[in-house]
């Protein structure tokens, strides 16, 4: 079991508001000005979750959605 048992999602130093807005604009989303600060403020959740999912693994550690070929 990981040592961080019980840890809640914690804030990290993440993307700036400008970086988040640039990423959303690159994605082609036309977001109302009023909503941009809120989305940017929530972006740290994505960074924290992404960080939590990255851990030392064997190179060959498979994802869950590898499937048998049809007919197997």
């Amino acid at each position, binding site marked *: *079991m*990981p040592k*961080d*048992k*019980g*840890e*809640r*999602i914690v804030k990290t130093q993440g*993307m700036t508001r400008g970086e*988040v807005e640039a*990423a*959303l604009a690159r*994605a*082609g*989303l*036309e*977001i*109302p000005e009023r*909503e941009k600060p*809120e*989305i940017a403020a*929530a*972006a740290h*959740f*994505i960074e*924290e*979750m*992404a960080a*939590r*999912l*990255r*851990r030392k*693994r064997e190179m060959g*550690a*498979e*994802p*869950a*959605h590898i499937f048998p070929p049809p007919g197997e």
Partner: protein
Amino acid sequence: MVPDFLTIAEAGALIAKRELSPVELVQSRLTRIERLDGKLNSFIRVLADEALAAARAAEAEIIAGGLRGPLHGIPVGLKDIYETKGVPTTGHSKVMIDHVPAQDATSVRRLTEAGAIVLGKLATHEFAFGGPSFDLPWPPARNPWDTSRFTGGSSSGTGAAVAAGLVLGGTGSDTGGSIRGPAAFCGLAGLKPSYGRISRAGILPLAFSLDHAGPMAWTAEDCAIMLQAMAGHDPIDPASADRPVPDYRASLSNEVKGLRIGLIRDFYETDNPANEVMRQGIANAVKVFEGLGCSVRELRLSPLADWAACGVMIMLAEGYAIHEATLRERFVDYGEAFRDRMALGALVTGGDYVQAVRRRRELIAEFAAAITDLDLVITAAAPSEAPTFDSVSKFAILERPSLTMPFNVTGSPAMSVCCGYTSAGLPLAVQLAGKPFDEATVLRAAHAYERATPWRSIRPTLLPS
């Protein structure tokens, strides 16, 4: 005079004995909807004429000796992401407000073939994700136990309609807890079956690899009756499992004595701390199970935040892919909660998604190993009773790790069961989860618990609209 509240099992027995007419039952629910739903907003479309016609046909068939089973003549509601032939299926969204499917979803077809009568389409969080929202074409459903409170989501209308006795059962979908959350807040039994047990074909998707369809009803027995009709292999759904479907209702009468239960206390004591009344409700439920002859031991798993991170990243990535083109073209046609949450999906990289799916394999293996010598696990379904609408934030699903998401990640059957009420009369809930495709044990334990406790005899007090 048809009682205000009936379970599917009770109504089915009366219909079978010809002591209750499907027409009278359906008419009584339509009258109840007319009287109460102005306050609850659980329906976004009532199909009164169609339901009465179906009820008359059911009655004639039953009188002619053609009773199909315990769902014959039973009024149900469908979350408005379940496609219905010739009837708009909108996802509670302006984006699909004109969508009229050419076919029923497989699960809808199976329910109607079993004799269920569809009273209408029920409110949902927008595309089973955004919400509660006040900027959509229809208002959000309200909790029958206290209309200032949230129903939970995303199967919000089903939670409200079943709790209020407007329908006897309904359909939900569950990508991270959308059956179990509203079941918990509205005091129902809500079952998310194993991934693959019920066809997803014809249900608007949120996240392909996490989406589960399932029943919501007043009791575990009613969920068993609905699951019996809805379950089974469907070649149209690539995730559909080709496995035998047991007789769920018959298995309810099997012994629960000797069941081995793991209690995942860390999830709701440290990882997403439940309030005191919810913890006490769960502790009392554990005592009931021990009193029924089950053994309960502590079970420790990876932190809840790991399960939540895995599930949320997959959900955002898959959901964003589904809505990407429309978000680009019609961003403001979505409600604010949906669009702002889903916009975060644009920040999830391909690498993030694959890491999430690699973590998923690890977590599935961890859970399988942890329950090798167990039959069930117990944990919280929600950290508290239903909150007020104004206390639910736009990014609530990210702020605290979900207590229900672990079993979407594993694809295991999981169920919310009412385990008491607060001093203000709001429902409390416990979550039971089992081994993949062992819904029968989950339902059996839930049924035994319901019979051993008084909670199913308490219904909300409702005032006319």
